[in-house]
């Protein structure tokens, strides 16, 4: 029996990391602040207050739109979306219903698929409620934070692709520099619309609201597919409704049905004049837009990285930028840098390090030292991690390696002297004799002794040859 095809569209709210809020001059960063510390009379909707549009938020919205290859609408407008809730002080949210700033576009995913963007619009965030038994507390720190809501077309057809889309969207926003991207803080939140059908006609959709991790997006889609499929196979119908996701139970539960849907009574916002942009200005913003993940992927092709390794690095723009710079200067030395990034720096214990401390030039120098056998790969890793210690920022890898006593001895005369000493040691006599008699595996013991005597600085590869020559 042919299985159901799943169709998914995703709406994503992105909090923009502007200095001040969308319509008031108040600090937009409320992390670690007391409740209601970042609230102005505009934010708590004092009578007579008027919104004043933050130009920086408009610029960030444009950057976000360009990052998604979207058309930027030169004229856009704000509307009021009305509903009553204590986290919404004015009784309406200022949003863009009819003429959004960002038009159609497309996102290319790393899995090779494309997801079209329907539009994206600017709006203000609401506050936060904390329910405590028989009373609730209102915190308006977040009220008025600029958001863009990105609405995808229903182009997504699996849980994995849904996750991939959300992850790539996250990267795009981070690379564009428009959000702090902290999912735990709610910087990006996903609403996922899911329907299933056996025909080309779409089924009835359910919307899963407010998912705040990639994993929950993937799991919610998987659960919904099973739930909707079970309903249809029992001959029942899927209800058009809003559902919530419970991370602990791994299930979605109904919140609001279509019949209960609110009438938002949209109305043009008379207090905020339309945003009118010059194409020149949009072009200037485009010209300043940093390189996007897909361009990095193309650049890193030459390094032959594993997909997982590459994506792990891409999740940290500072590493991707460093690697890209290295790659452009000397691709041959850069694969090793990528391995250090993914294998050493992105290990649990190093995640708190400042990834920006080592420059591309220093990393290339370090890689070259390995290439020239001046450092063992183990030694190089040790130096590498020291480069991410603040106290070492002024030190070149060469200096660090020397300080750490890790420089390899490649000078044949010096090595021969040590080898002679070792061969003269009584405990090595048997091994030396064995090698002379053609038992080459005994050479390992001798190499080990030389390494010990050289305090690890001898290059083991050249040692093998030198010992063999001496004993033949």
């Amino acid at each position, binding site marked *: 029996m042919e299985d159901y095809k799943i169709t998914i569209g995703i709406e994503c709210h992105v909090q923009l990391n502007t200095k001040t809020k969308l319509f008031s001059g108040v600090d937009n960063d409320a992390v670690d602040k007391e409740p209601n510390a970042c609230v102005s*009379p505009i934010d*708590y*909707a*004092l*009578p*007579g*207050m*008027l*919104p*004043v*549009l933050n130009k920086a938020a408009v610029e960030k919205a444009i950057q976000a739109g360009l990052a998604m290859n979207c058309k930027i609408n030169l004229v856009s407008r704000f509307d*009021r979306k*009305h509903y*009553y809730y*204590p986290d919404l*002080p*004015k*009784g*309406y949210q200022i949003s863009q219903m009819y003429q959004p700033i960002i038009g159609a576009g497309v996102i290319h995913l790393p899995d090779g698929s494309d997801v079209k963007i329907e539009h994206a619009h600017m709006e203000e965030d609401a506050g936060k409620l904390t329910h405590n038994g028989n009373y609730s507390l*209102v915190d308006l720190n977040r009220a008025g934070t600029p958001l863009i809501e990105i609405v995808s077309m229903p182009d997504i057809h699996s849980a994995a692709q849904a996750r991939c889309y959300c992850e790539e969207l996250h990267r795009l926003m981070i690379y564009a520099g428009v959000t702090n991207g902290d999912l735990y803080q709610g910087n990006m939140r996903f609403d996922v619309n899911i329907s299933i059908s056996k025909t080309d006609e779409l089924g009835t959709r359910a919307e899963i609201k407010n998912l705040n991790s990639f994993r929950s997006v993937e799991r919610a889609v998987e659960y919904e597919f099973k739930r909707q499929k079970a309903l249809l196979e029992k001959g029942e119908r899927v209800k058009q409704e809003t559902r919530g996701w419970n991370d602990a139970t791994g299930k979605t539960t109904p919140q609001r049905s279509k019949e209960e849907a609110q*009438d*938002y*009574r*949209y*109305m*043009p916002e*008379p*207090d*905020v*004049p339309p945003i009118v942009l010059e194409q020149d200005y949009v072009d200037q913003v485009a010209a300043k837009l940093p390189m996007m993940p897909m361009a990095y992927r193309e650049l890193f092709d030459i390094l032959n990285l594993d997909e997982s390794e590459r994506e792990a690095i891409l999740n940290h723009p500072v590493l991707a930028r460093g690697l890209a710079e290295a790659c452009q200067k000397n691709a041959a030395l850069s694969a090793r840098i990528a391995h250090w990034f993914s294998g050493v720096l992105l290990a649990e214990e190093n995640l708190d390090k400042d990834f920006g401390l080592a420059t591309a030039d220093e990393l290339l120098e370090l890689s070259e030292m390995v290439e020239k056998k001046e450092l063992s790969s183990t030694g190089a890793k040790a130096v590498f991690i020291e480069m991410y210690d603040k106290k070492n920022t002024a030190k070149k890898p060469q200096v660090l390696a020397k300080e750490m006593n890790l420089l390899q001895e490649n000078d044949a005369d010096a090595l021969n002297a040590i080898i002679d000493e070792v061969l003269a040691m009584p405990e090595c006599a048997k091994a030396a004799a064995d090698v002379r008699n053609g038992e080459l595996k005994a050479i390992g013991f001798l190499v080990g002794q030389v390494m010990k005597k050289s305090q690890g600085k001898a290059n083991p590869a050249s040692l093998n040859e030198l010992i063999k020559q001496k004993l033949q």
Partner: protein
Amino acid sequence: MRIANQTTKAVDLVREALDKAKKFEDYHCFISMNEARALEKAREIDEKIARGEEVGRLAGVPYALKDNYLSPDGVTTAAAKMLDNFPAPITATAVKRIEAEGAIMIGRSNLDAYAHGSSTENSYFGPTKNAVDPTRVAGGSSGGSAVAVALGIVEFALGSDTGGSIRQPASYNGVYGIKPTYGTVSRYGVVAMASSTDTMGCFAQNADDVNLVMDVMAGKDAKDSTTLEKFWQPNLPETKGKKIGLISDFMGDGVDAEVAQGVKDYAAKLQKAGYEVEEVSIPMLKYGLAIYYIVQPAEVASNLSRYDGVRYGLRSEKAQDLDSLYQETRNEGFMPENKRRILIGNYVLSSGYFDAYYLKAQKARTLLIDAYRKTFEKFDALLCPVAPAPAFKFGEKTEDPLTMYMEDVMSVPQSLAGLPSISVPAGTTKNGLPIGAQLSAWRGNDQMLLSIAKAVEELS
């Protein structure tokens, strides 16, 4: 206007105003008085004058402030139970500018709650009486300000005009009132009624005083994105010879014969003063009222959403849960007229009716503006009555909201188009009730209107 100086003490001006306010207490011009602060400020100004310091263009001039302007002096009520005890933490830009020039607020004047009304009968604190005939209404919504100026308590008063709220009470009480071009004066710190037509203006006894007060208030304000760059000049322009259209559509059916005659007489004076007057018909104007009573309630309903009992103002004692907090608070805090407009507004914005009402009204509004634009290609200014009849008796129109809305028929088209419009005294009826003539112009020509009014003033 009497300004404080070496010989005229600000304290005397303020005391005189306060005394008159007391004398005319029965008229109920004021919701609250600002006596102590006003005298304190007057003393400060007198001291500055004595020290020879700079004191501003309105030094020591007492004024009445419509009680929908926020200011830390006293409480701002908007004449609504909802804001019965609301100390404002900020100062409206207009108030800031007026007071920076030394003007002194002696009291907060009465209005229809949230400026919804044409008679000041919708005030939670009770109505204001007409300055000429206390058995009649003051007009509204800025009734308190109009009467305070008409009674000579103050020489000027601030008002707000969304669809006629300055012009109509000015005409009912025989004083000057101006609704400037939309965006001339900042709306920041004034309790919003309908944002797309809210304008801040004033009342005074003559064109020069209006001009002075407006010159002080006008200009760009970073806190109100809809404000215009300052176009107001200190002096009125020369306007002799300008062509004025007498709007025939507002001179016939439904207009009181004495009012029509008063406006015709004013037209004759205009000609005498050197202006050309010609009749003009603008058929589109008759749709103004219908458009206005869709657009305005929609914006009103939206702007009143914030009064939910959560953060400030009234919170009903009957609130049990979130729904009843909203319902009971809004039920107790709003007057019937407020509720009527919220209902109409929410209706025209609801998804099933938006296209049929709100959208259509906005399209018609564009046509109305086009009709004005075309008319002003041929005319410099337009003349018509302010309201169809003189001040009516208390209770005469409260039973039928529609007849009350009809009061606005000649004043809302200009509001929808953002045009400047002034109300000037144009004689009285046989019974002595004031008649108001209304002059309007294209956006930005506010001072042309004042100049024309002044020319007529100078005839007598």
